[in-house]
């Protein structure tokens, strides 16, 4: 049965190259109207999975459906429903920005080509370079043109493979804001190495490592699921040593460094109980200078590292 709440359903997809398994039994779904982050280290199988979803590559087994339509070579209906920005945008360096976008619009049978191209050029701040050859543009502008290519035929589902990779900070911020705005009208599957970016942009995430899915779902639920217990940041005087706190529960020091005149520790308690008040009193009773005492929420990075390092 087709679930129209899910715009993309990847079911048990495996891709095998001779002598190498690129992705293995990958399953996840993308909810309509969400920005779904696709995370994984280099070579994890992100780009392969995305190319399979975009219909550029066949899977060895399993199935992919977008908007209830099965992704297969002769399904031409899907071609106007999926916009794809690959890791290397398919750009012709000898074409002008405007000419290139008009070509893409024509290939997708867009009716009002001039208006649509002008609209996308405006949205991505490309109007000033519309007549310039793509080959003469900076990397940031080329990436914008690549994104414009995925947008010019107004597909409801976008696949963006590391769209901010290798760009200058200002362009990264602009593109992130643009992607955030886009999510009001489109569903986006978005891969990235930059974990804070994913946390900032995405409602849902899927973590892939060595071709297998490690976690998938709502970003807050994943935070909850992989929460390791109470994480405390304690800062005391620079020449002071943190006393033993094991009477408050079993814990582990994950981080220990001097920050200015403060000796900072990160402690991960197995128990989830908030025992800050007792710890504060205890440290002061030991005649130490207490500068910082706060609960740290586990970063996506911690979860990511936990999932990609501990399950070799």
């Amino acid at each position, binding site marked *: 049965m087709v679930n129209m709440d899910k715009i993309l359903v990847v079911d048990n997809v495996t891709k095998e190259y001779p002598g190498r398994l690129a992705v293995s039994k990958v399953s996840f779904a993308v909810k309509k109207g969400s920005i779904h982050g696709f995370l994984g280290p280099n070579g994890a199988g992100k780009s392969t999975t995305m190319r399979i979803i975009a219909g550029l590559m066949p899977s060895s087994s399993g199935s992919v459906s977008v908007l209830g339509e099965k992704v297969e070579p002769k399904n031409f209906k899907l071609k106007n429903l999926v916009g794809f920005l690959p890791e290397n945008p*398919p750009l*012709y360096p000898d074409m002008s920005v405007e000419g290139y976008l008009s*070509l893409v619009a024509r290939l997708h049978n867009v009716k009002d080509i001039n208006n649509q191209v002008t609209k996308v050029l405006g949205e991505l701040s490309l109007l000033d370079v519309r007549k310039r050859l793509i080959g003469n543009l900076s990397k940031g502008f080329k990436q914008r043109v690549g994104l414009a290519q995925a947008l010019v035929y107004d597909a409801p589902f976008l696949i963006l493979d590391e769209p901010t990779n290798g760009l200058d900070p200002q362009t990264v911020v602009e593109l992130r804001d643009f992607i955030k705005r886009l999510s009001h009208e489109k569903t986006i599957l978005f891969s990235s190495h930059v974990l804070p970016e994913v946390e900032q942009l995405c409602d849902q995430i899927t973590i892939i490592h060595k071709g297998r899915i490690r976690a998938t779902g709502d970003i807050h639920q994943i935070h909850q699921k992989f929460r390791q217990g109470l994480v405390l940041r304690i800062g005391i005087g620079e020449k002071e040593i943190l006393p033993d706190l094991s009477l408050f529960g079993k814990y582990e020091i994950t981080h220990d460094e001097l920050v200015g005149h403060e000796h900072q520790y990160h402690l991960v308690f197995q128990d989830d109980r908030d025992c800050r008040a007792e710890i504060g009193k205890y440290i002061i009773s030991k005649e130490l200078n207490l500068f910082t005492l706060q609960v740290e929420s586990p970063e996506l990075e911690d979860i990511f590292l936990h999932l990609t390092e501990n399950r070799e």
Partner: protein
Amino acid sequence: MILTIWKKEMESYFTSPLAYVLIGLFSLITGIMFFNLLVTYTDGIQAIPQHMAQEISFVEEVVLRLFANINFLFLFFIPLLTMRLFSEEKKQETIDLYWLSPVREWQVVLSKGLAALSLIFAMLIMTIVFPLIVWGVGIKDFSLLGSAYLSVVLNACCYISMGLFFSSISNNQIIAGLLSILGIMFLWMITWGGHLNSNYMISEIFNYIGITSHFERILRGLIGTQDIIYYITFILLFGFLSIKSLGRRNW
């Protein structure tokens, strides 16, 4: 769709120096060839008695030789045109643009083939100036000119079709170009092989597979059904192989 891709290819030829260099070079070489053939012809008829000179045909000595030479030039010019058509797009991954859009493989192959053929037409149009020159000096026997043009255009279609196939199987345009040159040479050599073989059947088969016998017949205005079938089969076969090769790479 075909017009869209054809236009894009034509723009691509003419935004780079490639088209201008090839058309210029082709015109220069064919011009020199024509001049040489004309000089040899006029020297020849001046050197012999007038009643014998009338038996030396201008068409035979100049027109047919010129077009046979043009066919030889295609050995280098057509691979230069076709080698990058798919291999470069595959290398740069721009070919994905077509597979992400509702375009069929045959439409891409046909459009690119037509674009290469259009450039061949642009080269051949330059040679129309030669009959005009000799018309001006009073030679008006152009009986085989139409079939001569038809023969080189048909050969060009075969070479383009083969060039597209080799470009579709390689990501390296130099390899694609070299394979095309070898392929064209092979087509010529099969006919030579046929001439060398004493077995009649084998000799006939070689003759049919090789392009030279068909080319020479059409060049001389002897257009037979078997020649037309040969050209159509050849072009469709390599067109089909290109479509299959592109399809296999993606799915």
